[in-house]
């Protein structure tokens, strides 16, 4: 076997028998049976959530803080005021996009964990275009150029991994991760190189006209609408087009879709390219909509969180919106913690990791694409 994905495809059908099959609602003999099946289904979600709540509380208590205060602080820090809410929505937007970056390739059983690198490469390209072309073209056009450059370069960065996968069957998990680390070094070079701002480690800002403003004197701006529109487009693409169906079919059963005439290699490349484009767009929007410069660490863990978001959403682009919002609440609330409580902002990784792992363990969410 040259790669892991191929083996898991083979085992997907026969390896895992369905656990506790639940009959469709019409086939229940009695109301009692229906009740049992509903209880079974909801227990599969409620039990892991309760379990992860206990684990998270234990971790916070281990850090020497009161878990209930901390959790309440997280919620109020993310939703407490108009500013907090707009901040949460502005974090939701990149999470939706990096969620798409994971969801589309995962649907084809391609493990693109390179969302992080694709985001940074997109942001780098957007900044470089903004700084070099800036002044020569009017602001809104420049913003469009930045966004396009970021999207295209994110797609290219992902296609590098996709190309290696196609050409030699190289394991895309390792390659995309290494591309993430390379992108981090690239970012580091750009912020210290000829484009450096000089004072703090970041690039110069792109021209003012090319950045989004903000509504209602909060941080909220067009970024959120773009993310929602892209999620809707991705949902339409995956469910209503032949290529989208092909990507899902390739993920479900490689041999069958090959026999059915789908061009597997083209679909693989397409899935990687679209995923990378979404992550690159996230990076470009972080530049144009939020920071107006390239700053190391500005992508937080969006690339990795996107994977968790995509899993919770069951790889469905439209469900990414609520899933990403929940994760944004955890992120923003977690960030607000360091000011109030004595708990590191990294607690949000713990919360996300524990919740998604326990949902996986109880098979409330499954990666079967």
């Amino acid at each position: 076997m040259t790669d892991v994905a191929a083996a898991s495809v083979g085992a997907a059908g026969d390896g895992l028998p369905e656990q506790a099959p639940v009959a469709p609602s019409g086939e229940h003999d009695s109301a009692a049976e229906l009740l049992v099946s509903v209880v079974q289904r909801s227990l599969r979600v409620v039990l892991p959530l309760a379990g992860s709540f206990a684990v998270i509380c234990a971790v916070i208590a281990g850090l020497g803080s009161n878990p209930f205060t901390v959790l309440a602080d997280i919620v109020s820090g993310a939703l407490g005021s108009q500013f907090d809410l707009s901040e949460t929505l502005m974090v939701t937007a990149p999470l939706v996009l990096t969620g798409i970056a994971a969801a589309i390739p995962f649907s084809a059983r391609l493990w693109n964990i390179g969302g992080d690198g694709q985001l940074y490469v997109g942001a780098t390209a957007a900044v470089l275009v903004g700084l070099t072309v800036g002044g020569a073209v009017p602001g809104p056009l420049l913003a469009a150029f930045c966004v396009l450059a970021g999207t295209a370069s994110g797609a290219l960065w992902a296609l590098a991994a996709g190309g290696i996968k196609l050409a030699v069957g190289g394991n895309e998990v390792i390659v995309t991760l290494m591309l993430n680390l390379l992108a981090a070094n690239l970012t580091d070079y750009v912020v210290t190189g000829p484009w450096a701002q000089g004072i703090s480690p970041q690039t110069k800002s792109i021209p003012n006209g090319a950045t989004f403003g903000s509504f209602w004197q909060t941080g909220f701006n067009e970024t959120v609408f773009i993310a929602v529109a892209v999620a809707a487009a991705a949902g339409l693409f995956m469910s209503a087009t032949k290529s989208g169906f092909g990507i899902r079919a390739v993920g479900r059963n490689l041999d069958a879709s090959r026999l059915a005439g789908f061009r597997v290699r083209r679909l693989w490349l397409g899935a990687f390219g679209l995923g990378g484009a979404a992550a690159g767009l996230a990076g470009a929007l972080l530049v144009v909509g939020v920071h107006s410069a390239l700053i190391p660490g500005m992508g937080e863990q969006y690339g990795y969180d996107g994977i968790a978001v995509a899993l919770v959403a069951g790889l469905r682009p439209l469900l990414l919106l609520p899933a990403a919002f929940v994760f944004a609440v955890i992120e923003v609330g977690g960030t607000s913690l360091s000011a109030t409580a004595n708990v590191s902002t990294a607690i949000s990784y713990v919360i996300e990791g524990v919740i998604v792992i326990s949902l996986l363990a109880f098979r409330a969410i499954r990666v079967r694409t």
Partner: protein
Amino acid sequence: MSSAASIVEAVVTDSVSLMVPVLWAASGEAVGEQAGVLNVGIEGVMLLGAFLAAAAFRVTGSLWAGWALSLPLGVACGVLLWFLYVYRGCNQIVTGLLFNLFALGVTTALYERYLTGAGIVLTIPNWNIPGLGSIPGVGPAVFQQSPLFYLAVLACIVLWYVLWHSWFGLSLRAAGEKPQVAAAAGLSVLKLRLLATVVACTLAALGGAALTMIATGTFTVDMTSGEGFIALAIVILGRWNPLWIIVGAWLFGLADALQFQLTTVSALAGVPHDVWLSVPYLVTIAVVVWARGARYPEGTGAPWEPPHRRRFRLVPAWWR
């Protein structure tokens, strides 16, 4: 400016000490993958091991205490990941990635809460093997190394013997290659994989501890920075054979050491530092491309469940 000869000597010596953490991790990963478990969570296990070693050092003042504590940590991680990967049949790539995220969060939070501030930075002293250590050229590089290096090489030799020259190793590889055949032959695939996962995680935790004890002497946030994934590539490069993995790990040590030493060569002064930092990652990608013929054990990464197994039910069967 240092002479060419001294640079070569420094590179070789550094490469051997830099390969140690990744050698521990990769040798364990080879056992796991031979038994059919692709432990993507190796990075997280290493990070936890590195943190525990630093924390134990801060509390007890002994670096070897952290080393000893990595054993139970590795066993605990192994049992947890076996439960997820094998017993519950969760997707190994996705679960491993989330375990890494969890480990990053836990270690960062604990570090910021308890371990920040200037601690004593200490690494364990090297052992000079009498006689061999004074061989010109090779001696200082290979025979004046950290004891963890000798232990890692010893572990690789033992693992090689067990995997390829014992009935037990044969069973383990059968469980990874064709679990259904192994089960039909009367082996318990689940138990074999439990053992393999525990060994894999224990060695990864020891590798993480080695990172603290040899390389840095202290913990820093996200200090593994991809070492676990580099170990995954080394396993491919070494074709799942612990002896070849020693060679593979040394190549990565070499790439790492070059990055430190080449910055001191004045002819290359114009090259940005970030290029040197990228060398190990580029080498990893090159290895993945170059190892195109490498074949994972067939069952690796795929969940497998014995037929007719009694399963855990959320609602007892008599309820219906």
